[in-house]
């Protein structure tokens, strides 16, 4: 657990130490470092490919260690020369940030999810990707690295950064991710503090921004604060870059733009537009009047976007899953109530307050919040994802609304107001997370992965000699592939052909047919179908639960068995049948999973 804690930190530290050679600004250094690692990975991969040397992981590790040591020496030398400057005035806010986010994250959010269990369903595809990248399987298209990715919505940049701790510490990423979740949560709170401090120049409001950011969790499709995934990381980078974008040199701007775009091809461009506005606004002859007109235009755009929901709903991608991420306005209104309670009324107060004051920066933030919200709530599938940036912007307007009400309060009244609002938001958050976790109860834990599944994965990892191929229901494949590294056909994004093949063997007691069907399943990426592959059939509680779903749900990537399942007494009969069948040999078994080798 302790090693994973430090390994988690290296996700942030290694790119920072790399970028530190080019700039002393912390966030800028991280972005430049991330870009260099992206270039280095492809360069080393190409050189080793030409030289036909198979030691990608070793080279990357040596390079990361070398760069980190050099950079630490460089920082140490610089400190010795110029003296170490520590701003003790910032210590109390640092302690508050760490304390507040730790209490919420570990005592509320992760209360029944001990290390290394997880609540973030998306991590497994990222772990799979990072794992493959660390083995030297690299391509600009994620869909060519693993068939878990059916759509290239981002480059492998996130996977590359995630593979650094894996390569450096040679550890399974599951435990590392457990810690990364907290650091991401902490950084979103820090980013909220810094941007609020910059916008309002008021420490009380900046602290309120931390509280609002920490307790508002967009628990559907957005996940800004609690999940570290490419879309949330790109929004975080955007806010941290926004703090100092005015001072960026052209080359830094170019690198930052590339990193943001490579991090997410869909959310990234919106982030770049926001940064372009923040970069250009101080350089253009803009009047207050113009900004006020833009605010009205933004409000109209938002209203028009909501109105468009009454006209129809449109699918942006021709995939089955898209239809499930195309929510009605009533549903979206429900989500917003779940995320904010009645706090959105502060948006109205903040809107009016910013409209009538003379602060340029606040007006620009309001314009951005309105336009980002207009895009996010438009009736197109997946568009709610854009709200990942709206988290920061809307929260600032909420804080502006709170600020307008408490502006003339005494210190004591302000403190009581802050305590009252924190208590209310805590109740909102508490209920919100209860609803999110509701389908994830398993025994005394709330989790998407069980200890038995981790044990099975560990066994699989030790068994795998690089030619094993796992077949099970989509969820089991997804989780076991990520944690063990054993390949499967598509993980949770199993294609329709494989789904129908599994459907065909449901409740079949014809071992010959089962064997024939299982052996017919192939990875979409031809090179992943190793010569002499060993097909492993994992049947467990999830598999039986998935097989009991109606056919239309089994053929959809949207319906999954989200939480672990034990094997029931009735299902044990099927496991026993496989144990006694000639074409199968039991390799591993626990209370939730039995793994057979298809002979």
């Amino acid at each position, binding site marked *: 657990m302790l090693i994973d804690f430090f390994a988690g930190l290296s996700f942030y530290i290694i790119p920072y130490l790399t970028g530190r050679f080019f700039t002393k600004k912390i966030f800028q250094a991280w972005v430049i470092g991330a870009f260099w690692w992206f270039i280095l990975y492809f360069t080393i991969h190409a050189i080793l490919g030409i030289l036909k040397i198979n030691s990608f992981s070793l080279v990357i590790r040596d390079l990361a260690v070398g760069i980190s040591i050099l950079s630490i020496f460089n920082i140490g030398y610089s400190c010795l020369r110029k003296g170490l400057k520590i701003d003790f005035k910032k210590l109390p806010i640092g302690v508050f940030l760490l304390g507040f986010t730790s209490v919420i994250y570990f005592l509320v959010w992760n209360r029944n999810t001990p290390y290394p269990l997880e609540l973030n369903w998306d991590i497994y595809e990222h772990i799979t990707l990072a794992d493959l990248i660390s083995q030297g399987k690299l391509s600009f298209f994620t869909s060519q690295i693993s068939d878990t990715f059916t759509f290239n919505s981002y480059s492998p940049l996130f996977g590359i950064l995630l593979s650094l701790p894996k390569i450096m510490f040679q550890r399974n990423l599951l435990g590392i991710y457990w810690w990364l979740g907290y650091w991401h949560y902490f950084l979103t709170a820090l980013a909220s503090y810094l941007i609020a401090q910059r916008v309002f120049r008021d420490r009380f409001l900046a602290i309120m921004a931390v509280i609002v950011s920490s307790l508002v969790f967009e628990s559907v499709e957005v996940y800004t604060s609690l999940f570290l995934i490419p879309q949330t990381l790109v929004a975080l980078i955007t806010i941290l870059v926004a703090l100092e974008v005015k001072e960026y040199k052209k080359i830094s701007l170019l690198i930052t733009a590339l990193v943001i775009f490579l991090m997410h091809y869909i959310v990234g461009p919106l982030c770049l537009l926001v940064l372009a506005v923040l970069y250009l606004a101080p350089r253009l002859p803009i009047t207050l009047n113009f900004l006020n007109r833009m605010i009205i235009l933004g409000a109209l755009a938002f209203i028009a976007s909501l109105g468009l929901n009454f006209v129809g709903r449109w699918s942006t991608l021709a995939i089955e899953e898209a239809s499930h991420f195309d929510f009605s306005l009533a549903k979206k209104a429900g989500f917003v109530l779940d995320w904010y309670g009645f706090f959105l009324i502060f948006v109205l107060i903040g809107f009016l307050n910013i409209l009538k004051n003379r602060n340029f920066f606040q007006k620009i933030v309001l314009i951005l919040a309105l336009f980002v919200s207009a895009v996010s709530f438009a009736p197109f599938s997946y568009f709610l994802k854009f709200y990942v940036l709206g988290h920061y912007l809307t929260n600032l307007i909420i804080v502006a609304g709170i600020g307008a009400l408490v502006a003339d309060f005494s210190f004591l009244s302000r403190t009581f107001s802050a305590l009252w609002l924190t208590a209310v938001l805590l109740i909102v958050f508490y209920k919100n997370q*209860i*609803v999110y976790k509701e389908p994830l109860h398993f025994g005394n834990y709330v989790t998407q992965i069980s200890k038995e599944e981790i044990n099975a994965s560990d066994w699989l990892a030790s068994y795998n000699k690089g030619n094993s191929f796992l077949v099970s229901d989509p969820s089991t494949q997804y989780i076991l592939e990520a944690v063990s590294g054993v390949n499967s056909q598509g993980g949770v994004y199993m294609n329709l052909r494989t789904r129908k093949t599994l459907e065909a063997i449901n409740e079949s007691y014809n071992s010959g047919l089962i064997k024939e069907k299982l052996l017919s399943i192939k990875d979409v990426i031809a090179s992943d179908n190793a010569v002499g592959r060993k097909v492993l059939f994992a049947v467990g509680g999830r598999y039986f639960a998935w097989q009991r779903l109606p056919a239309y749900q089994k053929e959809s990537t949207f319906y999954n068995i989200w939480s672990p*399942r*034990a094997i029931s007494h009735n299902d044990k009969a099927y496991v026993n049948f496989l144990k006694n069948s000639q074409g199968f040999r039991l390799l591993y078994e626990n209370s939730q999973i039995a793994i057979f080798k298809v002979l």
Partner: protein
Amino acid sequence: MLKAKANIIKGLILIAIGLISIIVVFGRMPVSKIFIDGYKVESSFYSVDAYNSSGSRIFSLSPLDDYYYSGKAKEHLEDKLVASGNGNFLSQAVLSFTNLFFGKTKLIWNTKGRNSKGFSTVTYSINSIGKGIRITREIRLEHVSPTAIGQSVVICSDCMVTDNRNRIYFNGDSLNDYLINAAFLLKKTPMILGENQSFPNDISKIRIIGRDGKEKMEIPVVSGEAIYLQEKWHLLEFRVGAGKQAVSQTIYIKR
């Protein structure tokens, strides 16, 4: 003075926003499910169902399975279920509040239906007590004064009924080799009951076990309660005199 008044109004607005938020939260709290020691009890339109951690249903309750007795007549509390829910907005908010802050776990499921005599309403209150649940049925029947109520529990389809005296129960006219063998494997004494024949009155606990002999739940028997088994429907009926409008039973779910 004006400033002070304005500040008071602003303070009241802050309090009001907070209170409305809390009401919104509790009004939107999911009240159709409760979790007890890893088990889930959930209401749907037709029934209240309890599931174990592997997602298998262990028992169900419904007014479509419960009975009332009046004179010689025996009828379901509801033959047709018209509506069901989890209480009104206020009761949901209060329930959410007590569940959240006082660690209570309570589920309310109210139904409205019809039987041959007219409309009926049955409200099921499910409260967690230790490692079990207490189920209270509040019954209002139109044009009927029942003399007894049959509280039915539909048990899991692969489960069997035993008691604290190590007996295992089957419906039928006589014991056959299959039943004797099944009882022998579970080290139980087989007993045959007719569908209208009550269990012996020397038992204090009914135990529901799986085919592997593992205990799934235990139902304490209250004095004066007559128990009946309808094996083909997996239904256990606990019949009590209806001196009052509410009847209760307790079920302990086993790990």
